[in-house]
């Protein structure tokens, strides 16, 4: 249905709040030039109206609890409700970050214990839990690389190597840290081209940012050689944890030669994504890099049996976020880890990989979709709709939109960039066989439609609250707030 903007629901005089009265009615004089004189055009609604508005909006949104959500590289797994119950506990919500450590031993214990789990899971020696998200973690990691080389008297190491299949955040984070980004091509298997890598390294090499399994869902089986090349060249090996779900509980980045790792707790560790955040992107490093981590770390003093915030990090890169990270997200992740345990974590990656390969094999050979790269996948698979596009004009975007008509979320599309018309599907371990079968069925049906009645695919979606959304118009005529909308509306420049 159509839900008006909250501004359009406003009626003067209504209130949606109650506030306590001031302790004493002291008159406080705000300097005249600072007093608010401009009108505060906020909506006026009662609480029942606000609740109805957002309840309706929520019903116009698709989440993991709504159905399959196989967004490649995003690991949209089920978010256990026990995580929410613990993370919204008053003992989590109502503590201040600057409280005396003696009054927040529970919070510090949670952070410390989470770090121990993450260390063992990744094979790293020390973690910061501060980064708010994956990209924030990447930035932390490359800043550590930067600090390390500077500290070693190698300021010339200003080149960060990034495979052409990498997430966009990798080059962006490297650039933010001041690195020049060198792209490394993939070979026909979909993995890093070793020769190109050899040719790219030099005394300017700061490091290589890599995901493994990579964004095609393919395990970089030459990882030992890759690590050797980078380390020999004096660079560091950075692990982008976005795809950790493919090896969780079985294989450790640290064992593969990685020096730095970031994790996405909102992906691999089941914390909800909240429509785009909050996430959490802890960064782990090998022993020789721990002095570069952001402050504070969480440490444990055996003698007193006390946890404490440790600001004694000699070469720290500083802070990448205020305070200690997205604490409530950390609580969720630890809850998950304790429930899963060693056996559960391994089951996660095994079934995630089983599900991805099941889908791969079931869909493989369907007209219009090709399967670039090696067949054996880990947690995700990338098909290409290029044949379909050539033969019928139906693009990956159309396929994605048509899937929505079947009540299913689309895969990630047009990524990785090295696959044209990419459909990047990551089912995760928390979907059922029936859901996988239904997804394959839907993709097959769309293929059939593309070859018999392409229009129905090209004009999809048909069964959604809104029809295909015009994003070109959105960029051409930016309207990003009610204020901008009103202005254009008054000028008669918009008819929507």
């Amino acid at each position: 249905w159509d839900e008006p903007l909250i501004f359009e629901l406003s009626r003067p005089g209504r209130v949606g709040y109650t506030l306590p009265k001031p302790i004493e009615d002291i008159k406080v004089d705000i300097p005249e030039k600072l007093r608010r004189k401009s009108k505060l055009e906020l909506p006026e609604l009662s609480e029942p109206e606000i609740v109805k508005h957002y309840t309706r909006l929520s019903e116009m949104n698709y989440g993991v609890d709504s159905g399959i959500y196989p967004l490649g590289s995003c690991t949209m797994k089920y978010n256990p409700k026990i995580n929410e119950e613990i993370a919204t506990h008053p003992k989590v919500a109502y503590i201040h970050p600057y409280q005396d450590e003696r009054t927040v031993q529970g919070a510090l214990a949670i952070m410390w214990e989470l770090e121990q789990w993450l260390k063992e899971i990744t094979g790293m020696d020390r973690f910061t839990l501060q980064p708010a998200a994956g990209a924030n973690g990447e930035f932390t990691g490359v800043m550590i690389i930067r600090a390390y080389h500077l500290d070693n008297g190698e300021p010339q190491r200003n080149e960060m190597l990034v495979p052409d299949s990498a997430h966009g955040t990798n080059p962006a984070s490297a650039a933010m840290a001041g690195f020049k980004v060198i792209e490394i091509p993939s070979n026909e298997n979909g993995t890093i081209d070793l020769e190109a890598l050899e040719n790219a390294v030099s005394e300017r090499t700061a490091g290589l940012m890599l995901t493994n399994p990579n964004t095609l869902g393919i395990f970089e089986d030459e990882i030992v050689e890759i690590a050797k090349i980078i380390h020999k060249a004096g660079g560091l090996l950075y692990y982008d944890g976005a795809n950790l779900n493919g090896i969780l509980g079985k294989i450790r980045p640290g064992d593969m030669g990685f020096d730095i790792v970031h994790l996405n707790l909102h992906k691999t560790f089941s914390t909800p994504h909240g429509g785009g955040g909050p996430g959490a992107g802890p960064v782990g490093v090998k022993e020789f890099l721990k002095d570069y981590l952001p402050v504070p770390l969480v440490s444990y003093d055996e003698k007193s049996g006390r946890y404490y915030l440790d600001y004694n990090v000699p070469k720290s890169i500083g802070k990448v976020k205020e305070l200690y990270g997205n604490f409530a997200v950390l609580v969720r992740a630890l809850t998950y880890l304790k429930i899963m345990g060693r056996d559960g974590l391994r089951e996660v990656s095994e079934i995630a990989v089983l599900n991805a390969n099941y889908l791969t094999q079931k869909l493989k050979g369907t007209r219009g979709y090709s399967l670039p790269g090696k067949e054996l996948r880990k947690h995700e698979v990338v098909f290409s709709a290029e044949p379909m596009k050539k033969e019928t004009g139906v693009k990956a975007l159309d396929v994605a939109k048509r899937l929505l008509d079947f009540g299913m979320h689309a895969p990630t599309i047009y990524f990785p960039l090295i696959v044209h018309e990419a459909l990047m599907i990551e089912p995760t371990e928390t979907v059922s066989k029936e859901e996988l079968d239904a997804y394959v069925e839907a993709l097959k049906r769309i293929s059939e439609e593309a070859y018999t009645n392409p229009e129905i695919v090209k004009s999809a979606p048909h069964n959604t609250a809104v029809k295909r959304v015009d994003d070109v118009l959105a960029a051409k005529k930016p309207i990003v707030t009610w204020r901008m909308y009103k202005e254009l509306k008054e000028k008669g420049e918009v008819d929507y």
Partner: protein
Amino acid sequence: MGKHYIPNSAHKEEMLKEIGFSSIEELFADVPEGFIREFNVPEGKSEYEVFMEMNEILSKNKTVLEMPTFLGAGTYFHYVPAHVKYLIERSEFLTSYTPYQAEISQGMLQALFEYQSLIAELVGLPVVNSSMYDWGSALGEAALMTVRLHRGKRLKFVVPKHTHPERMQVLKTYTRGANLEIVEVKWNDRGQVDLEDLKEKVNDAAGVYVEIPNFFGLLEENIQEIGEIAHEAGAYFVVGVDPTILGVVEAPGELGADIVVGEASYFGSPMNFGGPRAGIFATRNDPKFIRQMPGRIIGMTKDAEGKRAFVMTLQTREQHIRRAKATSNICSNEALVAVAAAIHIASLGPKGMQELGEVILKNTAYLKKRLSEVAEIPFDGVNFKDVLVKFEKPYQEIHEHLLQKNIHGGYYVKPHFPELGESALFAATETTRKEWIDALIDALREVL
């Protein structure tokens, strides 16, 4: 061991067989030998056991509900109406991803558009993104944006020395890669930005930054002048603001700000030991500014039938398209925190925003008045939430005594600004109760 989260655990063999594999191991045949190993972590547990374990750990925290607490300094105990929490926990919001598929994500897209719109009204700038990680990272991004606006030709960013230390640290880390020089301006004897010092340092600056209120909890009285000084020097003017003040204090956009940053999570989120948060980022409606903006932006458009619809827009600025040339590396942001803030702000409305600002001003004034009975208040002026107090005794002694009285005192300032002596920030908000302050003053009298 969490098998209840994994439906196909029961169907391994059946599924393997269907696709012609004989074992799970075969699916990992491409992994070099020796990499697969047993992990040294505990076995999985039942939900009940973990529930009890986490409850036990958490019981070691003492919350502000159990203990009057005067900590502020960038994190405040505000009350969040229950319906805010209730609504953002609806799974359609909670468990959704970044709204890549607009047609089935209109709810989250509209909620974020409304967030942007509400922030625009508060800060007085019409272009707002759908959140940064927090105020500090928003400040870092703002500084970088001023450099981009100068096409990298200016590499100096001027900030008050009395900028919040956490934010200052983030700013420095964020701007190191761009080789930006952070120049600090002194405060004067009233705890305000020293305009003369600013004028001396502003030359060639890409941007000038100031906070409302400042780290000492004071309203900077010369915001407009600072903006004018910045603009005269060709620098962009960046204002950081605690948005809970904006029902009573003029919108920074009206005071000359080119970019406004701040903390959105003061609305809608509990303190959560410091996170998650959400950074406000707003700027002018000018293509030059918009093109340089970091972060996700939700825009209004129409669908194939001409109906109003919402979509992520201006994505060509972003990392997944622009890669190394993006305006920022940010991908996941703090969407749900932003939606919570929006619901809270919408619930307050114009009257509630004003009332909130007034109650906090009055409670802060009351706290200040009472503190002045027992200690020195170094700076006059109008305080909002935080009040700087200077003691004769080492503050740690005072802190210990308060703790013993089940009161959590203020934030110790000396480690950051030793020149201020044994001082601490004590804070009040709309949640502060008279009996807490009475108990505080009594306890302080005992120890001072």
